[in-house]
Every structure is written in structure tokens, then in C-alpha cells.
């Protein structure tokens, strides 16, 4: 096992753990249920997940060889199955399956 790879993993892993654990030691003043910090933290979740979704599909849209129709099929499948069953698991699997099949049949 390469030593430089182990060192890289240890350093990145240590910082990642510190980023996840450190803030639990620093209880931030929320300023009450309607305080600015409370509102900031309440919006952090949707903002973070919306950001990560965008960051994961943007390269697909920006790639000239990317299959935008398959991407549309995948996204629509997630939306449809979520509206139907309200299940994160089923919506995820349906989206991946529709995307894979759309890419396959378009090839």
C-alpha cells in the first residue's frame, strides 16, 4: 500500500471528521425559534441538498456528449415516483433505472 496515499487519506479523513464533529461542541446561539441563526440553520438543509443535486447534474448538462433526454427521463421518474409513493428509496431506484434504460435505448 502506497504511503503517500495513506497519508492523504489520513489527513483528509481527519479534517472531514473535524468538520462533522467540531460544530457539535460549539452550541451556537439560535436567538429563539425565529432568531436569525435559527432561520439560517433551518434553511441550511434544503440549500445544501439543492446545491448538491445541482452540482451533480450540471456536469451532465454541460457535457456536449451528455444525454439530456435520459437526464430528463431520470428526473421525471424521481418526481413521479416521489409524488406517487413518498419514498426516497423507490424514487431513487426509479430515477436510476429510467436513466440507465434511456441511455441504453438511445445508444
Amino acid at each position, binding site marked *: 500500500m502506497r504511503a503517500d496515499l495513506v497519508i492523504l487519506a489520513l*489527513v483528509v479523513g481527519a479534517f472531514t471528521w473535524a468538520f462533522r464533529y467540531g460544530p457539535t461542541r460549539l452550541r451556537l446561539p439560535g436567538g429563539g425559534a425565529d432568531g436569525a441563526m435559527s432561520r439560517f440553520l433551518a434553511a441550511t438543509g434544503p440549500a445544501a441538498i439543492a446545491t448538491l443535486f445541482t452540482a451533480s447534474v450540471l456536469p451532465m448538462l454541460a457535457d456536449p456528449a451528455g444525454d439530456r433526454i435520459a437526464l430528463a427521463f431520470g*428526473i421525471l421518474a424521481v418526481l413521479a415516483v416521489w409524488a406517487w409513493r413518498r419514498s426516497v428509496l423507490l424514487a431513487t431506484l426509479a430515477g436510476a433505472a429510467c436513466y440507465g434504460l434511456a441511455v441504453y435505448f438511445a445508444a
Partner: protein
Amino acid sequence: MTLSSAPPGARPRAGAFRSGLLAALPIALGYFPIAFSFGVAATRAGLSGAEAVMLSVLIFAGAAQFLALALVTSGAPLVVSAVTLVAMNLRHVMYAPALLEQAGGAARTRHAWAWAWGLTDEVFGAALGAFARGGRSFSEAFMGGLGLGAYGAWIGGTAAGAFAGGGVLEDWPAVEAGLGFMLPALFLALLLSILRRAQVAAAAVAIAVTVAGMLALSPSAGILGGILAGALAGVFRRRQR
């Protein structure tokens, strides 16, 4: 020892831990194939199976691990690689405060050193979704089960992909393509599970800033800027009332 001699609170903790493991099922089913892809990509890049698994055990951050492969195979200096990957994971700083805020001031963090290790993007989203739907409440045991389920699936998927080898998906293009869309599909489903009408504006701002940041600067800048801008939009919107 009889069951009745169990310490007070042990059974609720065990139940919450099991609930966390069950809540991790969607993440595990999403993580396993993505981690499988990572294992395959790692062996294609020249890493051994043990090295691929080591990265998943020590880093446990999917996007950073894929980027690590690109950096290592391109011959980037160790310090440059480390700084890039650490910067990419900086967004995780905001997850624990957001979760604890929703849990309320009485939330315990005695064992946070353990469960916070599993606080990935997807675990954070799944926990928020479970709390938002009202079926679960915050507990360290629940968070432990949720994180452990995700961690186990991530390591197991990496090992399966690494030891299956680099060419395993070449004869299955539909499966390979579907695996590539698993992460965006999971993020979208998680977003739908936690999004409320009052937070639509925050999500929209986050998306717009992410697109602008990624196109104008870099993926890491876009991600960090998007999260911060969206969270700030949440503060601003309420002040408009």
C-alpha cells in the same frame, strides 16, 4: 443476565439504533452501487483493492474520493491534493448545527465524536427528512444507526467493486449508466423529502448561486457558495414579512 437487568434507557436506545439502521436503507441501496463504481474506478486507475477500501474507510466522502482518484492519477503533489479535498469537504461544517437546531436545545452530543463521523450529505438529508416527516426524533442512537448503515454500505460497495475489477461493467452499459445517475437521483429524492413551501426560495437561490459559482469559478466554490447563499436567503426571506 436477564433482560430486566438492562440499564434504564437501554431498550429505547436499541430501538432508536434499529430505527436509524432502517432509515439508512435508502442510503445503503444508493451508496452500495455508487461505492461499487468507486471501487471499479479505483482499480481502473491502478489502485489495489486494499487501497480502494482504505480510502473509503478513512475518508467516507464520495465526491472527495472520486476527486482523489483524479488527483492521484494526475500526479498532483500531496499537499495540493490534500488542500483541494479538505476544501471540498468544508461544507460539512454546517450539517451538525442544522441538525441540532432542529433537534432542540436539549439534544445530547455526548457521543457525537462517533455518530458525527457518519454525517455525510445523504445521512444529513435523510435525518432531516425523517425528523421533518414527524416519524422520528433526534437521538444519538438513531444517528448512530443511520450513519453506521450508510458507512457499512459504502465500505461493502467499495470492496465489491474493487475486487470485481475494472472491466466488470463493460458488458452492462445500462447498469453502468444507471449507477452514474444514482447520486443525483438520491439528492433529488432527499430534497423532495425535506423541502417545505417556506424554504423553496432558499433552495432556488442555492441552485442559482451553485450554477454561477461552478461555471465562473470552480465546483468547490459553487457548492460552498450555493449552500451559504441559500441559507442566508432563508434568513432574509423571513425578515421581509
